């Protein structure tokens, strides 16, 4: 470890770009505050889901509606996208040219859209079975929780596109680098929320 200190969550630029590293501390901490409050919102939706779980009004139940294979694929895709975004951050930190960075971000973007496609396919199948949000308290709480995560992934993907355009337009200046650090925190955070969703929502519903 070099003399530069650890200033914020996520990959630190110390040792590679000291000037940006100086600025990044407060910029990234502010975003970290937002993520933690977002985590509280998700936690309360989990609590609502737990309370509403028995309220199926003799309609569709979790065991009927969830399929283990698509959820497993979605989990693998999102986890891999977290890793590829990590590789993008490393390329941003250590490579002078932005070719690798753009490459890894493109892979992450494709994986993000693949995840969204699979999830939308699941939701469409549920709607086909008559499992729509107004059917029961259980389904209302499910459709408040899981699609909220999906919307986060969607806006994260849009954000990846915006940052890629920024990288190509402005090159890797300090502001763009800090943007990539924040986007990285957001993307890894979404993966952590997904751990809770696949464990508490899907796997709990599939246990027999």
């Amino acid at each position, binding site marked *: 470890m070099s003399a530069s200190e650890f200033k914020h969550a996520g990959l630190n630029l110390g040792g590679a770009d000291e000037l940006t590293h100086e600025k990044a501390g407060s910029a990234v901490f502010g975003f970290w505050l937002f993520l933690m409050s977002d985590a509280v919102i998700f936690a309360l939706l989990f609590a609502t889901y737990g309370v509403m779980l028995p309220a199926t009004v003799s309609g569709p139940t979790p065991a009927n509606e969830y399929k283990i294979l698509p959820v497993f694929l979605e989990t693998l895709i999102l*986890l891999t996208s977290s890793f590829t975004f990590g590789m993008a951050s490393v390329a941003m930190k250590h490579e002078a040219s932005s070719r690798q960075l753009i490459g890894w971000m493109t892979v992450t973007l494709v994986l993000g859209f693949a995840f969204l496609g699979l999830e939308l396919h699941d939701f469409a199948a549920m709607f086909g079975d008559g499992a729509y949000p107004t059917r029961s308290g259980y389904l209302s709480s499910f459709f408040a929780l899981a699609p909220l995560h999906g919307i986060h992934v969607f806006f994260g993907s849009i954000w990846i596109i915006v940052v890629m355009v920024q990288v190509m337009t402005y090159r890797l200046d300090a502001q763009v680098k800090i943007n990539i650090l924040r986007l990285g925190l957001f993307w890894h955070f979404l993966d952590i929320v997904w751990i809770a969703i696949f464990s508490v929502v899907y796997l709990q519903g599939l246990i027999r």
Partner: protein
Amino acid sequence: MSGPNDTKRSDIRSYAIGYGLALALTCLAFAAVRWPSFASTTTFAIVLGLALVQMVVHFRFFLHISLRKSARDDLQLILFSTLIVILMVSGTLVILFNLRARMM
């Protein structure tokens, strides 16, 4: 003092270790549900335990939160948020499950 190539290698290694561990924990959790070998409450406890470990792995290797002293107190903020979450979630669950039991 380590060279830039060493820090690059150790940065990549952190993500790779995290990815490997997370992959293993995910597969264990899905396997425990796909091929159940315990009572359902035990399986759910195992799934929750694995999820908790996987979250710690993500925080450690993807978000690089560690116990070393940092200029910003990210870890303290996480712990505080966790406290808030535990209070609100467990409070909600206890009160509403109790209410349901009384209404039955």
